């Protein structure tokens, strides 16, 4: 037998990226803005989402995809807010991928939404490589985790358009150094928007929700220009 060398040069994530491209087109057709919300476990993603829904439910039609390894606990909490929610259980997998999102979309009234939030699995490593078709990624970092996380997990923090620094009500009980965190973030991600907030007290939600609302509106305006032009 002859030894053959076959040049491949194909992206390992090709299948995921193809699914993500299809998702992105569906979001565009339905003029839905999609936020991929990521963080470590216990940083407060679901609490932030609950309060965000309370803040902008009157202005935007919101839907949620909840990623969780085994339970539906987060989806139950979001469901109580009266917005459409789909639970994805990855049964052990540490990240969501674009195909899981495609399956979940079948259960959402996409044409009746302005904003879709995907709450990713709590993990600072694995979700970074998997494009879901989202418009932006946002990272939550809670002050109880310590200010060294951006430097320890730079890939996720570099790609986030917004960084939500949560549990600000607890900062005096920690040695979290806000100035150092901001300096570290600027070294990794010079343009990321930083919001200091507390999902417990509501601090900082006005600014975050206003920014998010403008992002959603900007996509709508852009897609109507494209549609009419």
């Amino acid at each position, binding site marked *: 037998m002859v*030894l053959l060398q076959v040049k*491949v040069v*194909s992206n*390992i*994530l090709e*299948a995921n990226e193809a699914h993500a491209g299809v998702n992105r087109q569906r979001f565009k057709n339905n003029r839905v803005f999609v936020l991929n919300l990521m963080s470590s476990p216990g940083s407060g993603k679901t609490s932030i989402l609950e309060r965000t829904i309370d803040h902008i439910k009157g202005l935007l039609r919101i839907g949620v995809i909840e990623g969780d390894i085994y339970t539906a606990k987060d989806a139950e909490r979001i469901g109580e807010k009266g917005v459409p929610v789909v639970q994805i259980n990855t049964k052990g997998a540490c990240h969501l991928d674009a195909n899981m999102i495609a399956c979940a979309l079948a259960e959402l009234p996409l044409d009746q939404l302005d904003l879709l939030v995907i709450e990713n699995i709590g993990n600072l*490593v694995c979700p*970074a*490589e998997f494009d879901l078709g989202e418009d932006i990624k946002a990272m939550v970092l809670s002050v109880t985790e310590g200010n060294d996380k951006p430097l320890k997990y730079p890939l996720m923090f*570099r790609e986030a358009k917004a960084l939500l620094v949560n549990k600000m009500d607890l900062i005096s009980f920690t040695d979290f150094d806000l100035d150092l965190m901001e300096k570290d973030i600027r070294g990794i991600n010079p343009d990321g928007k930083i919001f200091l907030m507390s999902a417990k007290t509501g601090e900082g939600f006005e600014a975050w929700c206003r920014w998010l609302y403008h992002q959603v509106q900007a996509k709508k305006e852009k897609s109507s220009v494209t549609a009419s032009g």
Partner: protein
Amino acid sequence: MHELALIQGVLESVAKTAQENSMTKISRIRLVVGKMTAALPASLEFCFNALDKSSLFAEACLEIEEVDIKGECAKCGNRFIISEFQFFCPACKHKNISIIAGRELFIDFFEGE
């Protein structure tokens, strides 16, 4: 351990191309992995060895070429290796850097008969 999902993708892709080329035995697979990906070479190797593979891959070995993160300064055009994930130009300290290498994650080639 998303590396397991990545390796499964590699095996599926190689198996498909091998079939197209009427190959029955793979001896070597070479991946190119940038340092600015969330794929750790040691974990990829671990997953590759741990997976129960078909006879096509029974004698296959995995090689991984790592690629440094390289940036290009938007202001002065300087090209440089980024270490410690510090994204600023060492020449002019400008922070607007485009990544020109380090995000690779692909199958370069495989060998077999």
